[in-house]
């Protein structure tokens, strides 16, 4: 079953107000081309992202986000996310702050198709004290110990950028896989952009991540689809382009033009 498609077709299929997630982490292997195409569509979506970086900043800057769940938002060595700051400090963006372990547990609950996961996290910290959080303390049904229940995270659409995919939809990620493989099992629809579409993936090493075609809905060849973020071993983080982005991204018109151009390769 060939799964080769196009980024346009993928983005067109994202339901308005749907829950969207992105792979990668911080300034590494972010699906920038997909985020730009989604930002250019200007149809608001809800986001749930493990370690959000410039892809989320871009969508926030384009005004295309109506809710954000995250375990981190930032641009790593390039500092805080300007549009996340604006959205949280000025615009009252509805948001839920997760811890990393709670986010992973929520994704794993979704992969197991159970509605929640128990964790020990959350004890004695302020993110458990915020109004409207989806987390709850509860007693273990077997031992009575107090634990934290976190809800399953089941994105409607997940976008990943990979080094290589085959035409059947098998995915090869070289370098840190972040939560991509787990999110792919949790999401309803998985769209993968990749540097290269090949007939068959060959010779993987233990330090690479593969994702089975069974979890993948469609793939598209989008060279440079990670934009200025790092894609090991294809290209390191482009600090010049990233710095240029940071310098301008508070300007919504600039962001819209940037998104309309697509991610720079």
């Amino acid at each position, binding site marked *: 079953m060939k799964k080769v498609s196009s980024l346009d077709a993928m983005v067109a299929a994202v339901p308005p107000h749907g829950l969207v997630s992105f792979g990668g982490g911080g300034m590494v292997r972010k699906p920038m081309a997909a985020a730009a195409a989604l930002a250019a569509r200007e149809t608001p979506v809800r986001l749930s992202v493990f370690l959000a970086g410039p892809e989320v900043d871009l969508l926030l800057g384009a005004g295309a986000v109506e809710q954000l769940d995250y375990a981190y*938002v930032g641009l790593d060595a390039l500092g805080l996310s300007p549009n996340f700051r604006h959205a949280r*400090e000025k615009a009252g963006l509805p948001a839920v702050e997760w*811890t990393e372990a709670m986010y992973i547990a929520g994704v794993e609950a979704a992969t197991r198709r159970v509605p929640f996961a128990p964790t020990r996290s959350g004890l004695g910290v*302020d993110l458990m004290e915020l109004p409207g959080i989806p987390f709850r303390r509860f007693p273990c049904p077997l031992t009575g110990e107090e634990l934290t229940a976190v809800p399953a995270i089941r994105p409607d659409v997940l976008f990943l950028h990979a080094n290589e995919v085959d035409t059947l939809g098998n995915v090869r990620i070289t370098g840190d896989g972040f939560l991509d493989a787990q999110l792919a099992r949790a999401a309803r629809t998985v769209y993968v952009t990749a540097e290269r579409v090949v007939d068959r993936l060959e010779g993987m090493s233990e330090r690479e991540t593969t994702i089975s075609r069974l979890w993948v809905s469609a793939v598209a060849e989008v060279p440079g689809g990670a934009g200025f973020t790092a894609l090991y071993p294809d290209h390191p983080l482009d*600090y010049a382009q990233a710095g240029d982005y940071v310098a301008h991204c508070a300007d919504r018109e600039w962001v819209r033009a940037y998104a309309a151009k697509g991610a720079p390769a």
Partner: protein
Amino acid sequence: MSSAVDPEFTVEEQVITVLADIYRGEVIAVSATVCGDIAARLAKALYAPEIVLMAGGSMAGFDCAPTPKVLNDEWVTSPTAARGSDWTEAFDFISAGKYAITMGPVQVDRTGSCNISVLGDWRRPKVAMIGSRGIPDDMVRLAEMTFHVRRHSPRALVEKVDFRCGLGFGPDRDRLGLTLGVPRMLVTDLGVFDFDRTGAGMSVRSLHPGVTFDDVQQATGFALLPPDGAVPTTRPPSEEELYWIRERLDPLGVRRLDSPKPPPGLLAELAERERELLP
């Protein structure tokens, strides 16, 4: 080792040697700051060869050699990795207490509570920072947490953190019966600090050369616990340590990013210079 090592050292070099001293046993040594990262490499090279390094935090590049620090660590360090890992296993390691983490909090208070999430009220923050990340997870799982604050100031060392990402000592901790995740120590550009286990406050373990107690008190947003006798001076980096830091582990000087006042344009300069080191 060269005998021509300049014994003058920067505060980053001081901080690195303090942080290199904390590792014992088969743990994963990670840090949110550049100095902490270099310190882990220094520890593995000189003092604790059994610790596990990761290629700039990459779970794919797990259990690496202490290679030179660059911005894009994967390119230099990953090829030395013993195996690949993933973020699920990372938190299993944390659950099993197998990490030793140096955090870079934006705020630390007198009890050792820390904050990297927001300044002001979380619901409409003055500054939305990066979120609590893994600190709440580390806090209930790891025996200890270490803090590195690049610039000791009343805005960083505060009476009470605006948002608790990690919980220090005191009645709240005692009521919860939380015995893990205690603040091990704080290193800043001025000295090394301890937190009283009852939550009574922060004391000075040592001051970096040339720093006085009054300097520190002025730069701290709450009253320090009075010193118990003369405050020792932090042990300066040895010649061997300076050689390893400057020649072997950080030839580009990435550690300058952790300077209390980093030179302007440093990030761009480093990005340019490290191109020679990348394959």
